[in-house]
């Protein structure tokens, strides 16, 4: 997908070159790219998103899933998630592909 606009059908997967470690409660987590050895910190919300991506899922499913659980989230949280996904994709820590068109109803 690269520079393409993220859509609800965009399938998000963890990059196979990423190593992740959750830190202590309230301290977020850290990500390493194995090829570049570049290191990235993520905040608590970032760790929630990363945990959700244990299995590949579409952006729409991810937003729906988070929306059911988030309490007192700022009104911009959906934009924050999109920005986070795009940022990690730009760093090759997430892989974005187009979801197959024949997905069953209710799993868009």
């Amino acid at each position, binding site marked *: 997908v690269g520079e393409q606009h993220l859509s609800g059908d965009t399938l998000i997967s963890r990059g196979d070159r990423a190593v992740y470690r959750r*830190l202590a409660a309230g301290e977020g987590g850290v990500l390493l790219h*194995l090829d570049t050895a570049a290191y990235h910190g993520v905040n608590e919300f970032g760790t929630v998103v990363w945990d959700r991506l244990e299995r590949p899922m579409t952006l729409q499913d991810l937003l729906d899933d988070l929306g059911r659980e988030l309490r007192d989230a700022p009104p911009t949280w959906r934009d924050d998630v999109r920005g986070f996904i795009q940022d990690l994709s730009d760093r090759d820590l997430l892989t974005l592909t187009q979801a197959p068109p024949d997905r069953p109803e209710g799993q868009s």
Partner: protein
Amino acid sequence: VTTQEPSSGSVLTSQVRAAGSCHGFQVRSSLPLDLLREPLPAGDWDELMVERADHDVSEPTVAPIREWLPAPGKPFSARLYATTGGFGMWIDGVGGYVIDPTRSIISVPPDIPSALAESRLWGVPSVLMFLRSGHLSLHAAAVQIEDRAVLLTAPGRHGKTTLAAAFHQAGFRLLSEDLCRVNTEAEPSVFPAAAMLRLRHDVRTGLGALPSTEVVFEDEQRVHLGVTGERRGGGTPVPIAAVVTLHIGTGPPVLERIDAVDAVRDLWSLSFNLPTDADRARCFLGVSSIAASVPVWRLTRALSFDALPAVIDRIATTCVT
């Protein structure tokens, strides 16, 4: 504990001239070693046999997997190779170390003083032996305060060894001057390294008398001191109370807690890993584990001998509570 006998067998078949511990290894050696700690108590410790090669080994002609180039004040040049049985490390002016983690043997170069061979032995060659245990190698000094350890991490020329020497001078036990083997499991701990201090000549002069030390080797750059007597102590791991990252500034020392994400950034750059996915991941997870479970502090202080007592006092009274 390794029980296989090496095919060359020189350590097992020739006279054992040294026995003790270092970096968590129960060490036996056919050459005299002056920097070992007391032997480890009975238990399931890693074993390490050190022998002197009976002839020079040719340096491989393939590309090294790591290379160290000389830096200002540190004319150290070396190359690390992956070999069939493990690793080979060639240090300019010293020779080749053959490291065999499977058989737990390190062979040091012939025809160099034992003290020089030992000083280099407890650097990268011994690290390559303990990486397979999953433990972390950190570029850090370590001192014992009460019954726990404080790691002092920094790149070269940031006063790490000087501060460690000052702790020794003030009566604290020196656990390591430059490189630490860290067990990152539930309660992180550090294994005492070689009982040595390698000080630049100007630093040794500036520090003044260092009790319970003796000169074991000296070259143009540094004097290598061995810690003597009871100050040396045993080799059992010491629980880590804190990690202090050293920074250079001006004015009175400032000691502040840093969050875990910043701590990982600092420690990651000071850890040693092999250029493989598995080892890089192991190292990163180890660093993250330390940052998640041990308080990490940032110390900014002037690099002066006069500041050392205040720095020691701040660390001793703040980081071990």
